[in-house]
């Protein structure tokens, strides 16, 4: 097992997904504590996530969609019976 304190940036970034998957908090990882570049990388990813949360307005589907759905359900029912 690699010593987290002596990782290069490449080694750390190669293991990021695995570390996250194992539940590790990367912000307190020894490499991140001492590496400005990798800390900035983590910040970038979080910035992207934050920006994405504000991208899309939330909307209901149009009321006509229920009417279409009802029609489709009835048509299916008719086909089943015939």
């Amino acid at each position, binding site marked *: 097992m690699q010593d987290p304190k002596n990782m290069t*940036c*490449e080694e750390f*970034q*190669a*293991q*990021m*997904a*695995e570390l*996250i*998957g*194992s*539940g590790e908090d990367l912000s307190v990882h020894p490499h991140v504590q001492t590496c400005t*570049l990798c800390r*900035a*990388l983590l*910040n*970038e*990813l979080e*910035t*992207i*996530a934050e*920006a*994405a*949360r504000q*991208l*899309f307005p*939330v*909307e*209901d*589907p*149009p*009321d006509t*969609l*229920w*009417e*279409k*759905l*009802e029609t*489709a*359900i009835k048509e*299916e029912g008719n086909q089943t019976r015939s």
Partner: protein
Amino acid sequence: MQAHDSSPRAATASGNPPIEMPSRKTAASLQTADVEPASTGEVAAPSVAGAEADVLSRAQAGDHHAFAQLYSLHKRRIYSLCLRMVGNVAEAEDLTQEAFLQLHRKIATFRGDSAFSTWLHRLAINVVLMHLRKKGLSVISLDEAMEPTPEEGPGRSFGAPDLSLTGSIDRLALERAIAELPAGYRLIFVLHDIEGYEHNEIAAMLDCSIGNSKSQLHKARLKLRDAMRTIPRREGRR
């Protein structure tokens, strides 16, 4: 001719408020729309869950009014998921209709092994992926989406950060980058970072481990970052 008493609006007025779109902080609370908690940590408020169970039970028995209530409760989240996956209103409406049509066909087979909303989302996700596959887009199955592939292996993401990303992000560029993500990554990014689902909820929807959900989300964010770095920023645009 539409029966007035079976419309979703009538259902809403009858005492079953629609679920509000989640903020990131409230995704877990949305499980109050679920019929029962699943083993993945989902929590349902007992009184609401009881009412939901009753509606679900009646819908399973063929009660059209109860089905309308279920539609009213879940339409927003399903439509939202479809819209964010395909980025097109007309297609999102069609996919939402197809998802609920499939729900109508299959609702009697729901056994309660997972929360109802989780089951419904999984159904809708399959409808969306099937649609994308038919369109010939870069689609992978749910299972494949959760499996690491060689091209996404370790080391690919290596690089110094682009500090220009920190602070302001070109909105259109980000939308485009999300739209161009492979469907599996887009799905997990949409579910977590946009829709606000927690990893335990996503793991239940996609039938994967929580760790897998976390690592795939990380890879999706890295892909977005890579895409953002290759898209030229426009002068004067934030």
